């Protein structure tokens, strides 16, 4: 594994840790990944941290595996676009990899509308990848509406985490 990638993976991990420790920042529509983490000298690099090339684990470590949406919206905000740009770069690196983007909603909508909204969100993410030059045949989408929340609980934090598009590596 190249140093740059490892650094990227660690940076992503740091970001995850940072976000988990400040849930109040997640309540809004912006979601995770808004701020690039500051490098720190106190992190000990574990040389055993590697991921199979082209795997979901690698994608997650490098860029995160999900983008977030505002309530009843499917447009991509800046942080979501940055994540998708990372996915596109990664897909160019592994030309045989295909993704399925799952569109999800929070529980505060009706069932059928949320199925449609989840489809719209997944499509929105896919369209951006295609705009970045990814072959549309490499990106499938599926909507789960409000059927598969990532975070349990009836609160703003959980709802913000559940309004998401998630990349699954096929």
């Amino acid at each position: 594994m190249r140093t740059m990638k490892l650094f990227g993976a660690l940076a992503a991990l740091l970001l995850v840790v940072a976000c988990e420790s400040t849930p109040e920042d997640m309540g809004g529509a912006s979601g995770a990944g808004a701020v690039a983490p500051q490098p720190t000298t106190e992190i000990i690099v574990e040389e055993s941290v590697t991921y199979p090339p082209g795997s979901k684990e690698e994608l997650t470590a490098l860029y995160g595996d999900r983008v977030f949406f505002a309530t009843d919206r499917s447009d991509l905000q800046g942080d979501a676009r940055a994540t998708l740009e990372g996915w596109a770069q990664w897909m160019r690196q592994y030309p045989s990899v295909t993704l399925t983007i799952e569109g999800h909603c929070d529980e505060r909508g009706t069932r059928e509308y949320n199925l449609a909204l989840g489809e719209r969100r997944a499509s929105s993410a896919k369209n951006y990848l295609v705009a970045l030059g990814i072959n549309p045949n490499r990106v499938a989408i599926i909507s789960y509406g409000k059927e598969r929340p990532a975070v349990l609980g009836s609160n703003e934090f959980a709802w913000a985490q559940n309004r998401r598009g998630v990349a699954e590596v096929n």
Partner: protein
Amino acid sequence: MAIRRATATILGGLALALLVFGQPARAELRVPITEGQLEPLPIAIMNFATSESGELANLGVKIAEIVREDLERSGLFKPVDERAFIETSVAFDNNPRFGDWRLINAQALVVGRVDAQPNGEISVQFRLWDVFAEEHMTAKKFNGVPDAWRRMAHKVADTIYHRITGEEGYFDTRIVYIAESGPADRREKRLAIMDQDGANHRFLTDGADLVLTPRFSPTAQEITYLSYLDRKRPRVYLYNIDTGQQEVLGDFDGMTFAPRFAPSGNRVVMSLASGGNTEIYTMDLRTRRVTRLTNHPAIDTHPSYSPDASQVVFESDRGGAQQLYVMNGDGSDVRRISFGDGRYATPVWSPRGDLIAFTKLHQGRFFIGVMKPDGSGERLLTSDFLVEGPTWAPNGRVLMFYRQTPSDKQGGGGKTRLYSIDLTGYNEREIRTPVDGSDPAWSPLLLQ
């Protein structure tokens, strides 16, 4: 909504009937169910007599019990405690001693009997008496195989309900719904079916595939629903209740969902989502020909036909947020009908044609309501953290929906339950299910 409004009593209703008809001796025993919560009508239902022994001997008691439960659950009737009965036996072809029934304030009396037939079937017959007018109101006899005794009991209740309220009954019906179990993030959902009173419950799918939003065909023999079969793209399926066979409807490039039968049963109307756009289509079940009804970049979903199939109500966010729209059966002349505060969703046309039931979202709460097809006369029947997905009883007087409780971080709460409620907003009742339940659909009255 357990609040009860004491309005006219039955006696008041009778007095009104006397005024209207001016003939006290002919006063019609009647519950005017359109007027909101009344005092329920006291009705005495005797155990059905039988001269049979063995298995059949108990049927008379069990049938009477089901009739009492059906009528009681409607909120319009109050079965009189049998222990209060003075006259404990009434020969089927004789008049009862009306004075004995007046003494315990039974306004109506049901006498019935169960007999074995030479062909192995049973007959269930009953008489309905107006105690105060001392009049015979109706009598009916049902024949069937012994195993059909529950359905015959429901038909007795339907007949009584119809005779006294003037509305069709809804007791000989079934409910198909989604049985839920497990934590919210990996909820197992199964197609399940039961009688309207919860009896004869059975699961139709095993939970391996996520299933949602089942709806009955007009014959109640088929169900159309959404399944994520084999974790592929979600698709609309048909399920045949008799054979247990499942069949995907069409081969679309995208997700099909929100299916519902047309009143004729020959077509299914549904949504197709593709490329971020959701439109409404109908499919002819015989020719499999597909017709597109909407053409708009917004989300157009949850279609429901008017009973004469001339119009379709649906929800769309074409105006910026979910609202209700009505279009002609061919997709022409789309007009918005909901203009209140908040978002409007899941419209369902009443089988009577006079109202559209919906889910409303406003200020963080969910409501179940009804409005006229032109959008006027909106009434909200119940509200909570999450109530959703109304379905009509076949007489258009009762609705069923589901309620979900809030959940906590540990995965507690988040319970889903089925409820019925009168069109008046009164008589909300939980429909008990073996596990959690959502997405109920009420069948039409079952055929013979």
